[in-house]
């Protein structure tokens, strides 16, 4: 929704909302249109194609969830920019399985320790 302000005849600033309080369905319509639109951009930018309409619809659902996730990340990490990336049609577990790959272990205990280096000039 947007809010604009102007001043009425007797000089009082008139702050009024120009878009009705969207009910849940209206907000979600915005969100859905937004998500559909972003998904279209995402598919063309990263040349994504899906084997079937079911797969496409499933990936759209994942994409919407990742939009919300990017929003949460932005709130938690405001000094970076979070949004749609080439991984936005992957669930977090698909992403972890396919694109990470560090054995979740401590460093080998027997590895040689680096000598302490001088750090003051």
């Amino acid at each position, binding site marked *: 929704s947007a809010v604009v302000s102007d001043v009425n005849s007797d000089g009082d600033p008139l702050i009024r909302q120009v878009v009705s309080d969207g009910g849940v369905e209206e907000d979600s319509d915005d969100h859905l249109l937004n998500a559909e639109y972003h998904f279209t951009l995402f598919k063309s930018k*990263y040349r994504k194609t899906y084997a079937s309409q079911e797969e496409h619809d499933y990936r759209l659902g994942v994409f919407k969830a*990742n939009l919300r*996730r*990017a929003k949460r*990340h932005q709130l*938690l*990490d*405001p*000094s*970076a*920019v*979070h*949004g*749609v*990336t*080439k*991984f*936005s049609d*992957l669930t*977090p577990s698909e*992403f*972890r*399985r*396919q*694109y*990470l*790959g*560090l*054995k*979740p*272990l*401590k*460093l*080998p*205990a*027997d*590895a*040689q*320790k*680096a*000598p*302490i*280096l*001088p*750090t003051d000039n």
Partner: protein
Amino acid sequence: LPDDFDWRDHGAVTGVKDQGSCGSCWSFSATGALEGAHYLATGELVSLSEQQLVDCDHECDPQQYGACDSGCNGGLMTSAFEYTLKVGGLEREKDYPYTGNDRGPCKFDKTKIAASVSNFSVISVDEDQIAANLVKHGPLAVGINAVFMQTYMGGVSCPYICFRTLDHGVLLVGYGAAGYSPIRFKDKPFWVIKNSWGANWGEDGYYKICRGRNVCGVDSMVSSVAALHTKSQ
């Protein structure tokens, strides 16, 4: 220690690579560190083969049962250095190109070794020591928690909350004293990290994360490698 430092400015970092849909980040982190060390030892920047590690390195960590390097199913950079030390070195990328899967046999050819490891070390969770080793020994192999990286597009990542369980291997190539973060209206010192998800991710394939409090575990698994002074054949 300089306030800002970046091995890309000194020619010690190859182009951003793409591991594709394969959990082989550990091999990209390890080759990146050896590429830098080889450059420091010989003045020669050579892109090294991750596929050799994916196909041939099944080195296990003696201390931890089941902790073996296993292609697209994960590995450890220090085990990769151990493997490379044992077999004599890594081939060039162009002699043993990356395929993005681990179904092929090991095709390692000893006569084509391009870079060799003389030793490797792990570095304590001390940011000054990490910076000092980076400046002295070249790019460092680091582990990180990648949860915020799936949606990252740019800027200095500094999440208020981020687990330190490590699930991704990357390459630390530099650091900066001040990456301006508009939201917090102040400069934040940051690490510069080379990732292996292609140049169309993040900042041209790179990730910046703030320094100072082991954010996302970035300070907790850091290792450096030293290369032999032999130029590639």
